[in-house]
């Protein structure tokens, strides 16, 4: 399944906030059609890594390459247009828009009709609008009947927590990205929903053709989906490899159990 072509590459990435070094000298590669999990204790810098890749923060130094093209310094919407979309750990839906509108709004980048043309609804504008609807429905259909039918016209604020997480994923898919960055997609879900999300992530890769970089705390999910696991601690990559290898790596165990203090003394 996994191809060999490198899609996303991070080179010697560095980011500090004030005196705090949150990402330190990080190298990382994501290949096409791969599912890579990023794990690490709270505050390890995982979300910051996503913020760097999507252009919300600018790295202090280092490179972020998509297909060999450097993304550093680009505006976030540009990066998304080039093919990287994300979900938010803290859920940032457009709450007062409907479910379908949320997904339609995310198609701004790859659509063209200008405001004057949509004001008079030229045939071209209508055609594109129809295509936007179709794509939104297709992406929402990815989640079985969870986000289908009458839910299209419900406001996002009326969705359950699990459905909000699904909608975040649908919205990211609608940008026509090739890489999805999922920030703790199973957080706050019950076991059954977690299981569903695990299957969904596999399906995203197998049927959707996406490459996926996912942050996840739930080790069952990580074990179930990952081709490769990267473990971060204090912004440093402390282990990388298959789930079994990383999960049993002494440094990872140590980071998770918080044994560091006693040992470094």
């Amino acid at each position, binding site marked *: 399944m996994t191809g060999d072509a490198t899609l996303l590459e991070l080179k010697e990435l560095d980011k500090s906030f004030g005196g705090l070094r949150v990402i330190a000298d990080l190298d990382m590669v994501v290949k096409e059609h791969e599912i890579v999990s990023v794990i690490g204790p709270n505050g390890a810098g995982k979300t910051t890594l996503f913020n760097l890749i*999507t252009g*919300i923060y600018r790295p202090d130094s280092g490179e972020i390459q998509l297909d060999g093209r450097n993304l550093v310094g680009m*505006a*976030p*919407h540009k990066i*998304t*247009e080039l093919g990287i*979309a*994300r979900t*938010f750990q803290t859920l*940032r*839906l*457009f*709450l*007062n*828009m409907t479910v379908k*509108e*949320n997904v*339609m*709004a*995310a*198609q*701004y*980048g*790859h*659509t063209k*009709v*200008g*405001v004057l043309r*949509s*004001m*008079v*609804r030229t045939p071209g*504008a209508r055609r*594109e*609008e129809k295509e*936007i609807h179709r794509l939104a429905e297709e992406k929402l259909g990815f989640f079985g009947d*969870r986000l289908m039918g*009458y839910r299209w*016209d*419900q*406001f996002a*604020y*009326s*969705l*359950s*927590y*699990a*459905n909000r997480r699904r909608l975040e994923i649908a*919205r*990211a898919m609608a*940008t026509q990205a090739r890489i999805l960055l999922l920030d703790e997609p199973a957080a706050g*879900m*019950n*076991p*059954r*929903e977690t299981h569903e999300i695990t299957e969904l992530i596999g399906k995203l890769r197998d049927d959707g053709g996406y490459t996926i970089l996912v942050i996840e705390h739930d080790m069952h999910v990580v074990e179930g989906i990952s081709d490769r696991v990267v473990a971060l601690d204090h912004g440093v990559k402390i282990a990388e490899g298959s789930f079994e290898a990383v999960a049993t790596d002494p440094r990872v165990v140590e980071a998770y159990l918080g044994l560091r203090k006693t040992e470094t003394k």
Partner: protein
Amino acid sequence: MEQPPDTPRIGVDEWVASVEGKRERYTGPRGAVLKRWERLPPAARVLVFATPAAVFPFLTSGGNLFRYGLFTLVYALLALGLNIVVGFAGLLDLGYVAFFGCGAYMYAILASPQFGNHWQAEAAIPVVVVFTAVVGLLVGLPSRRLLGDYLAILTLFFGQAFVVFVNNANRISFPFVGHADLTGGANGIANIDPFNFFGYRIDSTRKQYYLLLIAVALVLILLMFVNESRTGRAWRALREDPLAAEVMSIPVNRLKLLAFVFGAAVAGLTGAIYGTIATAALPGDYDVGLLITVYAIMILGGFGSIMGIVVGAMIVNNIPKLLHSSANARPLFYGTILLAILVKLRPWRLLAAELGGLVAFGFAIHGIASAAYPRLVDGESIGSGVSARALDHWMLFPKNPVKIADVAYILLVAAIVVYPQLSRVWRAVLLPPLLYLVMFVWENLLLVHIGGATRLILLGAMLVALMNIRPQGLFGTATVEIA
């Protein structure tokens, strides 16, 4: 439904599905109307408003058409432009009326004796619209990265700067021409030409009314189309969450600028039309008072709701004006109060008790006053007829009501603020005195003279009441968030 035994019986998702179920967004008779309304195509919705509006000139006098008709449409058009900036894109623009002013002055410069220009409307209007759009762009350029409060302050500054500018631009010296009177200073520019389209002059109130109606209908339809387009969705997305919008491939800064430019263009168009109606451009017309009114319209109608704006404009323009003449005012006023009580008060026994209490309270106060302070009852209510004379035996009418009515007014405003905070029992007990106070102020102050300040206070009271009943405005969609 059978569940496997080892799964949690109900997850969050299932709970929402089973309890909230496939609940319709609207229910009851109101729901039936709203649903049908939403299914109408935009053009049909506009027709629902435009048809009665088109008939209106035949049912009323020229003066009424000017007061009620023209001004409602001017406000509606103005608020529609603001709705792009604030309602759609969520940018708190407090300098908006300056664009309106720009439009009026620009048209005045192109078509009045001030410079001896008398442009045809078909040439002047596009120039005015493009000019204000460019001003919008220039104000938007430095502001587009600003958020919330900063943007509000900067645009407020721009709005005030505009007023100062037009007040003083009658003695600007230009590099080559020397001194020029650009804006007429405090006196403004008078004798603005009526619109002249290819020789057809829009010179009567009725013609101006229809021109405005066409403009409003056109802008309404265009905005409805934009709202349901890629750009409209992007505006609303950035209003909801600019960061998420940016990450979802929406160029936030460019769209903010676009909203500014379009809002300014609509304001400029409205300004030009207003200039021909008022036949003068005066600096005082584009001040904070107007800003408050336009915002009130938008808040009342519901941010982002295009149709709500039209209704809001009707309410904000017409209710204070209707109240101005006592012949309309009394039935309207007491009718509204009675209706509100009938709708809100349940059960019937409570309703009867409150109304009985109100009547008894009035007679008691009147009795006490005529015995102890005869000065409080030596006046008369306005108007003649049985009802007015009957009122004399119930309501207090001091001969010289100004001072005491002012005090009562302040008391009333305080009471209205405090009243909703009280417990149920106190609210029930204090309702008759409160209503009596309302009527006292009404009969002795508002009915006698409704001035500019009273208008704004009335507007404020309407908004306070609305905030308590429907925070999202009459037509706005709920802005609820379940964490």
